[in-house]
């Protein structure tokens, strides 16, 4: 029996399959998420975009808020995973029953209408279980704000977009305020 050493294996595999062997996993990584399924992400992106919509300055989608939320849910915010999973499921069910469409497929006006119902808990228990729609709403509201206005190192606020909108110096130049007139 011959022993195949790791180094030899990689060399051989590389010769035999080129980069194809290694590439698919990288490809799969692009555009996918740590926590959300692709379907869930569509719903979350739509919610975030209504919380901070694009106008003359970028909105939540441009700033990559989904990546902030996705990353934190697989780390610091692990305890919020259930609320998201159930919240998205409940929201989609509600929208499908009421209008035959997923949340992200509704018009902006319809989306805002549903979100106002969530915010004010006007969606009852029989249409939303487990959890309360306002709990999910308030959670994604604060996470969206964090992702949009927090530091880009956490996944959102791409290129300090919100700092530009707020007219704050970015990146922070230590001490520059001292020389202002």
């Amino acid at each position, binding site marked *: 029996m011959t022993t195949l050493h790791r180094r030899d294996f990689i060399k051989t595999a590389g010769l035999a399959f080129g980069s194809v062997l290694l590439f698919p996993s990288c490809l799969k990584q692009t555009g996918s998420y740590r926590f959300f399924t692709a379907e869930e992400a569509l719903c979350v992106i739509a919610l975030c975009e*209504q*919380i*901070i*919509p694009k*106008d003359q*300055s970028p909105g939540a989608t441009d700033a990559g808020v989904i990546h902030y939320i996705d990353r*934190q849910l697989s780390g*610091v915010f692990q305890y919020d995973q259930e609320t998201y999973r159930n919240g998205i499921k409940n929201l989609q069910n509600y929208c499908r029953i009421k209008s035959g469409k997923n949340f992200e497929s509704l018009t902006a006006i319809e989306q*805002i209408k549903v*979100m106002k119902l969530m*915010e004010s808990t006007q969606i009852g228990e029989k249409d939303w279980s487990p959890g309360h729609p306002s709990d999910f709403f308030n959670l994604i*509201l604060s996470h*969206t*704000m*964090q992702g949009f*206005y*927090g*530091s880009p*190192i*956490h996944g959102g606020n791409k290129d300090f977009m*919100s*700092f530009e*909108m*707020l*007219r*704050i*110096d970015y*990146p*922070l130049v*230590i*001490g520059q*305020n*001292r020389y*202002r007139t």
Partner: protein
Amino acid sequence: MANKHVNAIVIGAGAGGGIVAKELAINGISVVLFERGEWPNYDEHPNDELISQRTEVLGSPFGPDHLRNPRVVTYKGGSKQIVTPIRGGYSNNAACVGSGTVSYGAMAWRFMEEDFKLKTTYGSVEGSTLDDWPISYEELEPYYEKAEWEIGVSGDDTQNPFAPPRKKKQPMPPFEYNQEAKVLYEASKRLGLHPFPIPMLRNSVPYNNRAGCIRNRTCCGFACPVDAKNGTQNTVIPIAIQSGNCELRTGSKVVEIMIDDQGKATGVKYFDQNDKPQIQTADLVVVSGAAIETARLLLNSKSKLFQNGAGNNFDWVGRNLMGHAYTGAYGLFDYDILDFSGPGATVAWCDFNHHNPGIIGGGLLANEFNRMPYLYTNIRPPQSARWGKGHKDFQRSMYHRTAQVVGPIQELPMFESRVTVDPEVKDFWSIPVASMSGERHHLDHEHCKFLSSKAESILKEAGAYQTWQSVGGQGGPSGGQHQNGTARMGNDKKTSVVNKFGQVHEIDNLFIADGSIMLNGGGFNPALTIMALGFWVGGHLAKNFSGTKFK
């Protein structure tokens, strides 16, 4: 290998403990200074609001580790919740060398004479354990002066007609007003008030071989990148270490004070940097863990003569937990009133500390530290849109145009507002954790309404086109970064925990030097008072303790 016996153990390298360690060490007393955290890292999170002492949603940059240090909060009605440093209600201060003095806003207030004698000034208040301190302002005054000169304060008290008497001026000139403060200064003058520059534990000019302040935008809640903010980590602790008599032991979690059957403290049990249980013996133990952890440590230190915890035979340990309800008002202006030079807070008023009819204590007012982008999303006039186009328009157009005047109210001590140890919840090292419970006194909210209305009147006079109040002081439990009161000083062992020198009643060689021993938190940020108490207790020990016993 067993640790070498030392003269003194100081637990907690913050505002109180760092100073006590230095006072002992320079007087030839050998000290082990315990700190559960590590040296702070100055440039890890310089511009990261979400990991700062102002918004700890993603992490607590100055400790403690949020995965290992839970606490319990019991709300009105009895619902109990486990909290961590990155979730609301934890009352996180910090856990690092310097503790809160690394990242604080660094206001350097002396309490007023009345703050030391609330009962004499106002009489008894129903439902409150309010009382006079066993020491007066006059007695503490020289120690305030030491704190101002050794740690480093910029200010000019001569501009504050309500300032208590002092012998020596503050060592550095005051900071100049920023744009917001200039507008508020003029307006308040027209109202007959007495604005003056906020005293700060920051260098307005180079001091103590360190740089002057560079007006960094992110100051309060962050470590200073040029080390111009003065805490115990860059002043007294290095001096203590350089004396050769002080060993700083970081990453070491003290979990119990050992007390023998004669009622004498013999040392402490702790977990070292590798989480291994260790023992350190000493002739003297000083606790400086801040109001919540100090109370927890005393309660977890049970012995034959103190079966309910060290110094707790009369059930006063952990009682009277206070902090500061912040209260004030906002104003919207039709021009950019903010210039974002750091730290933002530069002007204050003491017109509402004491001698206002119907108000017990009161509080200072000041313009606020620079608003951070995420925190600003919660600053809105009533009935504003929380999200959507309305949110964004407001955020974009008003971020530079919102001024805020705010202050800490003197909270009234409450016997049932307290720290206990939870019978079930344990930390990473299997030690019962602190549990906070109880309500604020109903008058706190009334006092907050008073202070907020004054803040609003200044903003109106300054030309704000819209103003609104944010009124604090309801609910509980109290605590927060200004936590105090849980091991109060007193002459009677039946109604207090320590005597006027911070010495625990009935345990001669156990002392406390932090905010716990205060009888009330004043209407002021408490850091300078905690430092003064550190010098007071430390000075007493250095004078009266020789070798292994009291002189």
